[in-house]
């Protein structure tokens, strides 16, 4: 589903991501953990086709994000750590805009928006401007927009920040459903307990370099993910 080979991104003299290689298969929830500034967001943005990178290759379903960005982007969705979405639109107009871009048929989008907005309990608010939304509501809207076109690969940067416990629980279920349907999820988190319970595989990044990756059992063994992470970070 996603192949990251030798990804390197340089900012000035700093190698934000240094020769990172990671493969994610269909059906996998892949956690990405690391300290602040380790290179998680840079990696996710590079995969999403937002950030150009200096070396390496990123393939989504065998297609390069560098040479076939449109095809790759149609197959995936990205949710950033801070959902800065168009505050000048109402929630419903924003979702309709996203549906237009991903060419979701008119009847399907009405049904899907209604269903997802009900699940996340923001249906009544959809007529209001996004500028009036709380952080959590914006995050819910970003999640709904990401699920609109049934993406095969979903990239998420700290997706649980700002969500209430019920919405967090719902999102975890939805993530699992995507993977059960043959999709894949690649997300970063600082909440190690969530990663430990939710992820099939996990990668730990430090100063731009991948220091450990594999199945949860391979990475943590008999210890907790937190103790392994802290040990590796020292």
């Amino acid at each position, binding site marked *: 589903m996603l192949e990251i080979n030798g990804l390197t991104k340089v900012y000035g003299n700093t190698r934000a991501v240094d020769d990172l290689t990671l493969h994610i298969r269909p059906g996998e929830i892949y956690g990405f953990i690391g300290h602040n500034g380790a290179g998680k967001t840079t990696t996710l943005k590079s995969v999403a086709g937002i950030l*150009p990178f200096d070396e390496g290759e990123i393939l989504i379903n065998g297609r390069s994000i560098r040479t076939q960005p449109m095809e790759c*982007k149609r197959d995936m969705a990205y949710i950033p750590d801070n959902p800065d979405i168009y505050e000048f639109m109402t929630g*419903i107009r924003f979702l*309709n805009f996203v549906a237009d*871009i991903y060419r979701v048929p*008119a*009847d399907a*989008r*009405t049904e899907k928006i209604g269903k997802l907005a009900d699940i996340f309990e923001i*249906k009544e608010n959809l007529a209001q401007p996004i500028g009036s939304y709380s952080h959590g509501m914006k995050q819910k809207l970003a999640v709904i927009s990401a699920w609109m076109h049934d993406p095969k690969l979903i990239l998420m940067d700290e997706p649980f920040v700002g969500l209430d416990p019920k919405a967090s629980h719902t999102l975890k279920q939805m993530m699992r459903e995507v993977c059960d349907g043959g999709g894949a999820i690649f997300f970063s988190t600082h909440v190690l307990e969530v990663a430990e319970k939710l992820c099939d595989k996990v990668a730990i990044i430090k100063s731009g370099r991948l220091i450990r990756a594999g199945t949860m059992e391979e990475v943590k063994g008999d210890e907790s993910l937190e103790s392994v992470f802290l040990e590796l970070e020292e």
Partner: protein
Amino acid sequence: MLKVLLKKQFLEMGQGLFRSRKTGKMRSRGGTIGFLILFAFLFLSIATAFYGYADLMCVPLVAQGRGWLYFAMMGLMALFIGVVGSVFNTYNALYKSKDTELLLSMPVAPTAIITSRMVSVYAMSLLFTGIIWVPTTVRYIVAAGSGTGIVFPILMLFILPLLVTVLTCLLGWVVALVASHVRSKNAATVAATLVFLAVYYVVYFKLNSVLNSIVRNSDAVASVMKTWGYPLYRLGLAATGDVLSMVMVVVVTAVLFILLCLIMSRSFLRLSLGGKQAKAAVYREKPLKAAGINAALLGREWKRFTGTSIYLLNCGLGLVFLIAAAVAAVIKADVVRMVADNIGELVPGADGLAPVVVLAVVCMFTGLDMITAPSVSLEGKGLWLIRSMPVSTRQILHAKEKLHVLFNMIPGTIFSVVCSIVAGADALSVVLVVLAALCFNCVIAATGLMLDLKRPNLNWTNEATPVKQNLSIFLVMMVEFILSAAILFGGWLLGSLAGVRVALLVITVVLGAVFLLLQRWIDRRGTAAFETLA
């Protein structure tokens, strides 16, 4: 405490001077000096224009022994400009600062917060009133001579902004009260601003004749002022050196200011933190309409433009001018026709060149719309969204240009056709004026986009930064004025040699060629520049 807050306020105000808004880094000494020189140049240019207005009244009124009337009228003008200049920022400065909650969570009294913000409004008012009052004082000294009396107008320089502060804060308070009760704040802001601007332009265009009429009828104006405009009468007297009047002005201003502080302190928390809100709209599910990708992108630009009052008001006013000018051309058709018929007598060799003048006017007005100039910067922190979507950069950039062209095309065409017909142009000339105006429209759209692609500023927290403090907008305005003037003079030269149709045709072809060159840059280097933004 107040001292610390004031320091923060002034740091914030001076940020643009000493720190680059684009990179966040401190400006170099050369950069800061350059910025100061540019600022001083702008201040002096505007002050010189007001010196001209002061000149109209000063000598005759001082000679009549009515220096007070001179100061009263110029004071009124300073108050008006001060209020117009500050009022749009006052509401945001007082109630919508991002640090309100942070400051309230600290051991800081709300009175101290509001006072520090009022001081920054005062500083802004000082700038706007000073731009009139300084030339007013200078002209008075030139006419009446210097002496100890000049202390009074100089003292007034600091009192007038206090009055402006009182008026703008009152207006800001009213705006906050209204804003907390209306659902569509954006529409309310746009409507209020348009009314305000209409009043402003009516006053501006009538100013010369009003000033001349005041000088001619100074006896009547003076007697009216002494009864109906008593505060202004005292203000004028105070500026000429009347001690009693100065004491009265100072006391009244101080009392008003203190009263305002008390009123605002009481309502500050409620107004700045939201308080009573208008009833929110509730979504009712209904079938959604699908659109193509290009239409969706154009819709996104349209919503951003119409949904952001500061963007609409600063970059879309040309539309209002175009419609007003088209209506005026119909109403004053006989005058337009007379000028067009006699244009050769006014300008040598300009016989039959009225369509060129119509074109220059339509270009000048459409050029006031600079929709593309801040459009890349306005993507701001939301840029990730469009960059993560399956749309090409060309599609994104073309949508920005399309909005500009479509927004101006309809009113521009209406004005071109109406005004050309009223001016007696033949059918071919009308068509050429429309085509040339369309090409000009495209050139301005592409120029604005190119400049913003070269100097984007994505790091802002308020839309005012990319819209009001954007060099691209200033440069597009310069291009627009230079190009309009070039069309006027070039059209006149060419037209006098080869006739109006040839002149219009050449202008259309040249503008079309310039647009194609700019578009080539946007499609190649512009797209590459956009793709490196993140």
